[in-house]
């Protein structure tokens, strides 16, 4: 009996050591109740003809990340179905005030032609599109969501691999001349990467940050696959902390 207690005691000691580095406020699991003035529901795409999201999935795939734009406000909504978008109302174009308003609208899994294993139809948008505070390019900084390594820089994409999680984060459409990082550079959480712009090489896009997160899923048979996971709930969580100064 005494021996059993000693064994259990050792287990508890090991357990408490294992948790020592975890910040207290770390979000684990699903996003809790959210302010409906600020945020649309995760997985609920808008307008309704823009596709089918992961309704009911409120899981925070990247707990405790920093919001990828340095400053609030920022607006998550559709670049394609929003005002001035290819399938949206014409309005005053991409700078229409309606694009710079809350509530956020999830656009992960928005209709696209390419394969997406986590989208209900097997196809869709790989990440979310975020508009910075104003419709001005090259003014608003994108920052590292996690401490990590800049693994690659492409023609209009910056790749960050999170040191603590192994998640790969992609930042698209930053102004290439504004980049404050290079391949192989270690960055701190919140460190400036580049200015949000409309860079897609010689192709056209709107002023926004496309942000996505790739993670590896391990299946019960031991096999695994790398997929783009839903960023929206993680971003709501991060934005709430940004607004309340708990970065």
């Amino acid at each position, binding site marked *: 009996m005494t021996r059993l207690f000693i064994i259990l005691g050792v287990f*508890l000691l090991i357990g408490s050591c294992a948790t020592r580095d*975890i910040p207290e406020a*770390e979000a684990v699991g699903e996003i809790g109740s959210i302010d409906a003035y600020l945020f649309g529901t995760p997985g609920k795409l808008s307008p309704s003809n823009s596709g089918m999201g992961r309704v009911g999935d409120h899981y925070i795939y990247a707990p405790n990340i920093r919001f990828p734009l340095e400053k609030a406000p920022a607006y998550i909504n559709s670049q394609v179905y929003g005002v001035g978008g290819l399938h949206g109302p014409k309005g005053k174009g991409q700078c229409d005030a309606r694009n710079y308003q809350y509530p956020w609208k999830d656009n992960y899994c928005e209709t696209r032609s390419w394969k997406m*294993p*986590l989208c209900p139809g097997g196809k869709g948008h790989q990440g979310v599109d975020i508009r910075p505070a104003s419709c001005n390019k090259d003014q608003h900084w994108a920052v590292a969501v996690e401490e990590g390594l800049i693994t690659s820089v492409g023609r209009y994409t910056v790749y960050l691999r999170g040191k*603590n999680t192994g*998640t*790969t984060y992609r930042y698209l459409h930053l102004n290439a001349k504004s980049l404050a990082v290079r391949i192989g550079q270690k960055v701190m959480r919140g460190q400036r990467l580049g200015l949000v712009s409309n860079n*897609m*090489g010689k192709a056209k896009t709107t002023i926004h940050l496309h942000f996505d997160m790739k993670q590896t899923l391990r299946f019960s048979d031991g096999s695994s696959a790398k997929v783009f996971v839903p960023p929206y709930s993680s971003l709501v969580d991060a934005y709430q902390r940004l607004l309340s100064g708990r970065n």
Partner: protein
Amino acid sequence: MKNFITLVSGFLFVISIVSAEPKVLVIDWPVTQKLKSSMTVLSARSMPYPSGLIDKANAVHLPVYLPSAYAYQETLQMVGEGDFYTVTVPLSAATVFITGDRTYQQDSNAVTSVSTLAKELSFIRAEGMVSVDFNRHGANYTLSIECDQPDDDQRCTQTRFLQQVYADLVLIGGQP
């Protein structure tokens, strides 16, 4: 007593959920080693690899694949250590990347409704880039290309170019 044990095991369970360290996949090294020796013979050329590349590759604990056509290009950049690597190859008006990683972030039971598409090999064109995700020897890799002219450059408007690069990947290193 039974209740106490239940309580303790519950506590341990919670701890295991809370710890957020990246978890590591098992690599099938014997198969990899065999492949490596056969592929090294196949890829034997008179040119040396860029300086330091093999040392960097051997500091990585998963099989390191490179596009054979560019493996000798001095301008390629490799970063990585331990459980991952990325190689960036600048081409004229385009960039090719390959990244390998042996960590995993989610057990699929935490993520409901994942399509079996996740395990199918397919070349996709998304955000103006062509890419393919694949699994070899237990590790996961992504090969992709990004172009200056995503709407006009055939390397980014069609999958044929990347399919060719994929078919000619060569194993250059990696150690258990």
